[in-house]
């Protein structure tokens, strides 16, 4: 699993590639939490996610709640259909803010943040 984070003026964009499973989740979680706290707005570019399990979903949920609790915002962008599928059939998809592309996510973030 690889995580690459870039910051612009309003938000951090994190690109994740590889499998998000129980094996990598603690590391994944702490890095993203840090990025979120640093910027308030976080776009997660999901296009490179391979396998996705319960542990991966729980990290996203935690981020989502952390963001919501601190007046920040998490937007998932370019979610691969297989990942989206897992989130849909488990009833979690509608809890998240999502956008088809990173560009749209950044734009949406600018609108969503104070």
């Amino acid at each position, binding site marked *: 699993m690889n995580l690459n984070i870039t910051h612009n003026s309003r938000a951090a964009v994190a690109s994740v590639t590889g499998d998000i*499973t*129980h*094996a990598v*989740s*603690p590391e994944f979680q702490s890095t993203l939490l840090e990025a979120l706290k640093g910027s308030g707005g976080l776009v997660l570019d999901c296009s490179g996610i391979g*396998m*996705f*399990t*319960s*542990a991966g*979903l*729980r990290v996203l*949920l935690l981020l989502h709640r952390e963001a919501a609790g601190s007046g920040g915002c998490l937007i998932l962008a370019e979610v691969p259909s297989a990942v989206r*599928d*897992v989130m849909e*059939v*488990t*009833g*979690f998809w509608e*809890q998240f803010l999502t956008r088809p592309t990173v560009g749209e996510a950044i734009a949406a973030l600018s609108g969503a943040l104070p």
Partner: protein
Amino acid sequence: MSARIDLYPTGEICGWKVRPGRVFPFGASLVPGGVHFSIFSAAATSCTLVLFDKATRREMAALPLPESFRIGDVWSVVVFGLDPETFEYGYRLDGPDEASAGHRFDREKTLLDPYARAVSGRDVWGNPPDWSDPYPYRGFLVPEDFDWAGDQPPAIASEDLVIYEMHVRGFTRHPSSGVRHPGTYAGLVEKIPYLRGLGVNCVELLPVFEFDEFELSRQNPVTGAMNMNYWGYSTVGFFAPKAGYAATGSAGMQVDEFKAMVRALHAAGIEVLLDVVFNHTCEGDHRGPSISFRGLDNKTYYMLGPDGSYLNFSGCGNSLNCNNPVVRQMVLDCLRFWVSEFHIDGFRFDAAAILGRDPWGGPMLNPPLLESVAADPVLKKCKLIAEAWDAGGLYLLGSFPNYGRFSEWNGKFRDDVRDFLRGEPGRAGVLATRLAGSPDLYESSGRGPRASVNFVTCHDGFTLRDLVSYNGKHNDANDEGNRDGIDDNRSWNCGEEGDSDDGEIRQLRLRQSKNALLALMVSRGIPMILMGDEVGRTQGGNNNAYCHDAGFNWLDWSLVERESDLLRFTRMAIALRQAHPVLRLPGHPRGDAAGALGFPEVSWHGRQPFEPDWNSRLVAAVIAAETPAGPDAVFFAWNSGSQAENLALPDLPGGFAWTVEANTGCPSPDDIYSAAGGPILPPGGPFLLGPRSSVLLSATKNS
């Protein structure tokens, strides 16, 4: 944010920080900083908690729990620093291995926690298991973070239910289902519009507690395929949903997917009942594997003979000792868990007569388990349905210890409707009793028709299409020499065994199917339809299809087109039941109590009004009641003879006329109408009821 910590480690075992647990709840649960484990055994001498790394499946720790972590017969511990997403667990218990005294401990064996909320090992249905795995079914922890989004049970009155008995996998596994995830909870969700269109408002799922489809699996020389445990009446984990039914089972998300399914069904106004199997476990008799209960506390969990042998009232090797106070509590915990955590609306208890037996197998007058379930505050609004018999010969239909709460699968309804349907002589009287909600079984006790779950077919036995296509069972595919399955089918093949090209036979079968469905919908009580009966699903005459994960056990969705006539009839018959309050009243109709339009609650008729012939093949009734929407009166007649009958219809008061709502003797679309939507009959005129046909008329106001 600073958090107050009252839960801190007090010691270390094998490098893991721990403290004694709080005993309750049993099972594994998340606590601040770690995981709480708690397990019961009365006879064990030691207990070791075994932790596995989820990713590698390797054992990462074995924590022998000190005596100071034992309160009474319960060991409990908090293990700190354990990431709930990264481990699986089990237990190893030591104790006497003395079968004659009822003890079968094996300290080498890693065992599944009976309270495990998720079980790995059979994550994807049909994936070949690793037979060398010494601990194939592993417990793991599941977050309780599902957002129910305000979900509430539909809370449908029992008498208004129309139950659809279905197999989660079989419902959408067929390639024709067209769903994204065939054979799963998610697949079922995609077909909710079909269920709504059909008009059922309750699904009863065949077992969904974790089981092993490979239990006793073997190559079947007759079919060339594997015989599997397709139905799943053999529980591995009572607190864990079947992972192999989840599209996300391999991601460990079966719990979430299951909850999302329940939420979606509720949003569609459909209740969810579970078929639960508390009468035995998957461990079989002394030849079976030690998976959980046998190695944890054999003597507590199973009914044993004086020599320590397994008493077998289930026909499956063992009998769960469910009136032992500890086991009783586990069953109660389990039911409460499914109701509170999964929002389940009720349960159908498989072979429930066993639940009324004492630890030595004797039937009890006042079984504490059933009394506890009936009175439980968490289960207070659940539907409770008993299969009121067991494989040990205890038959409690009508007398199941019910505490005013349990309904019963009415096996007599099934038998008597089948007899009448196939044209047995002299059955008009018993059919009338079934139409009235079986007062012979449920009136004197005051239980009423709500105690009667009416059905003509269920997973056990013929499908409806097979009931009218076969005189005998054809179970050769089961590879048991056609000896398995019941012989008492009360079926009639309409003139030819099996598939037929004869147009008349096919028409008759269709009509007979409609007769059965209409009688089911007209009868007082709670109707239950078997998945696929509405579209003529066939099992090729197999009346015990528990072992086939194959096409004939799956719903073929092309039948929706090919059997559109029967489907339309079923849908409209359900709608007629819902349109007529008089068909759904919670009491037995009486002949000596005023109903409506000058008729008593029920009156019986024959060729002439008020002249029933109980020894005939003709039953006719007017069922009438005053309802908030005005008088509701219907005339139902069923002629199971081979000759048409000319009926003089009972007179209605001025201003009312009989309107045809269903007549199975007519071809579609004149076989059924929406409520009050069919032809109006002239007063007094005779009504010609065709051979093997049934009719439903309603009293409508002349306009």
